[in-house]
């Protein structure tokens, strides 16, 4: 029952790029980047990194959402990944706005732990007003999530990026082929594969999902690494896969994964 057809797409990475346990930054590297980030920020330099839930730290180059940076979330579980990233910030009193996605599942967000009292939804603006509305959002909220739908680009991308840096906002785009602000995002999180548990053929119900997320960050020299997560696990909790010995799917270890998977596939067919 565990088809991981897309899992093999991770295999096209050169094995030594795959680093177990997330970011390939050494402790020294991490410290340097942090200092650099702090120096660049003119606004709210006291808090250059917005913390995320511990299981997600491995996804992000600095272990958190860097203020003034841009992210692009892609792949089949992008919405759930977005909710997961919002959990810790909204609980800590940060405000988030989602522009252009009125159909997001608020129950799913609430169950993951997003504080809905600090989540604002804005309807899809008319095409001509995108840049203005986005500008207003960037000035007012700590996290701005955009779901551009059919809009491919907004005018004044350079100004928007400058405003994001100046205000120390984190700008995230959900799906879409490329960021609407006209330049690659600083961090790109792609859900490369997902696997559902709990649903059978004619029985059961979806209960847990394991995903593999590939990170590509400009900060770490366009290096890619992958992280495996339960999103959520059987108890509805976000958890990293490697934390527990029972989780045999260590996402980074592709060879071992394929080896383990073989008997399952025989079983299904």
């Amino acid at each position: 029952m565990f088809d991981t057809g897309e899992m093999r797409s991770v295999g096209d990475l050169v094995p030594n790029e795959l680093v177990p346990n997330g970011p390939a930054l050494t402790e020294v590297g991490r410290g340097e980047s942090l200092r650099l980030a702090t120096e660049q920020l003119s606004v709210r330099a006291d808090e250059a990194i917005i913390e995320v839930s511990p299981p997600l730290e491995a996804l992000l180059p600095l272990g958190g959402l860097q203020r003034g940076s841009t992210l692009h979330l892609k792949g089949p579980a992008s919405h759930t990944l977005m909710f997961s990233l919002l959990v810790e910030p909204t609980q800590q009193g940060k405000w988030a706005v989602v522009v252009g996605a009125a159909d997001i599942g608020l129950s799913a967000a609430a169950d993951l732990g997003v504080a809905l009292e600090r989540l604002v939804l804005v309807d899809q603006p008319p095409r001509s007003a995108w840049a203005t509305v986005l500008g207003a959002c960037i000035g007012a909220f700590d996290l701005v999530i955009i779901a551009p739908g059919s809009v491919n680009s907004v005018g004044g991308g350079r100004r928007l990026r400058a405003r994001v840096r100046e205000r120390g906002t984190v700008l995230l785009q959900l799906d879409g082929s490329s960021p609407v602000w006209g330049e690659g995002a600083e961090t790109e999180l792609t859900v490369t594969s997902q696997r559902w548990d709990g649903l059978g053929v004619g029985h059961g119900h979806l209960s847990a999902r394991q995903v593999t997320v590939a990170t590509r960050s400009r900060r770490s020299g366009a290096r890619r690494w992958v992280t495996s997560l339960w999103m959520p696990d059987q108890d509805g909790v976000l958890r990293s896969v490697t934390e527990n010995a029972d989780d045999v799917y260590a996402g980074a270890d592709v060879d071992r994964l394929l080896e383990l998977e073989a008997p399952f596939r025989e079983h299904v067919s």
Partner: protein
Amino acid sequence: MWCPDWPTVAMGVDDTEPAAVFSSDRVVACTAAARSHGVHRTQRRRAAQGCCPGLLVIERDLTREFRAFETVIAVLTRFTPRIEVVRPGVCAVPALGPSRYFGGDEELVARVHKTVEVEACCRAGIADGIFAATLAARTAQTPQVVPVGHSAEFLASHTIESLERPELTDVLVRLGLRTLGSFAQLDIADVIGRFGTVGVVAHRLANGLAEHPLDTVRPDPNLSVSIEMEPPIERVDQAAFLARSMAEELRTSLEAGGTTCTAIAVEVETEHGEQISRLWRNESGFGVAAIVDRVRWQLDGWMNGPVRTRPTGGLVRLVLIPDELVATTGRQLGFWGGETEADTRAQRGIARIEGLMSPEAVTMAVWNGGRHGDEFRLVPAHSIDFDDRKVTREAHTPWPGGLPAPMPSRVYLTTAASTRRRSDRCEVTLLDGQGNEVAVTGRGFLSAEPASLAIAGRPPRSVQFWAGPWLVEERWWDRDEYQRLARVQLVVDGNDAHVVRRQDGRWLLEADYR
């Protein structure tokens, strides 16, 4: 000066027609015809409709009420420039000066009544304070004058409920204090000891005094906030946006002095020199949102009012002048509670985006309960009170038949009404191994195992795992809301999970687990 049933009058409903205006499911006003059927204020909607099946239900629209009330205020300005608007339908005028000019209280009140009657049905009364004067206006058909210094006597026979403070009067009634007179006779020290600040204010009112002791010191003129607009602005929402930052500024300076304002004057001027100034009163103190609302109402009543009084140019000046200050008491803890800088910024941002798009385009979640992904409902952000807000799932209200956790992260269909109304609902094709459409039998089984799913025009993908159908039949008592459907949860090729529903003989995409 009191206009009876103003909310219904403003809605343009005839008094002979049974109608009621509701706010959060409670009656706030009803017509005489509805009243004769037994409809009364604070009644729940369902109870009101039970009393009077043909009742016309109207949702409250404060902006419209104020816009309509502006015509009445405009008439009153012929008597005196200083008019305090308490709420739509009620305004107060200091009578001392005008009554001397028009030759006595009786003469004044009769004139006011006659003049206003042309515009709307109204009642008027004169007494020592706003509370007594309002009661005087309400209790008599003809204009009533309570002589100076006799307000306490006039009030004594009225029921304690006239105070409109149910949490206090409930207790007083149980103590046997049924009239304002019996409450007024209590010793003030006892009232403080037993009922605190709320009790003191009520006691002062019952004695015919003003809610707060008169402060002979005018508020510091430096406290007023003004702004010049260059270029002139034409729209109400732009002005309201500016008013918010001004109100914030005002609040900050008032808070520094430990005061809150109970009356505020809003002055605006256009590029052609036209001016309008209104005094707004709110005995419990103005918060930022309340001030912005007053500015919006005042400008809306003026700029969208009758053509002959409408301004001819854009606005160039807006001034907020605190007119009466009282010390901040316990019930007035800051205006938005312990908020952080991020909260303030976000609330300002919300107002700005509302101005750029429309007030309905910015929404936030509130708990609703439901089994179709509508456990949380989106409501316009401007209608939300941000104070100490917490939005969580209420675990004590189970919704059997809902989807099991984890919940889908994109929900396309929610309530029955949305299924029918939404034009962008997404039809899907669910086929079995032979290429026939899968159906749900009358006994609640699938006609065949689903084998492929095609979502609106995209190529079909093979179904790997599925479960269902899960049947939901609900609201059989309501023809519009009734729905019967069967849900199937699917994982298709590529491990994408969906929920599809069979309803009215079609398969629709209900939700995705993205």
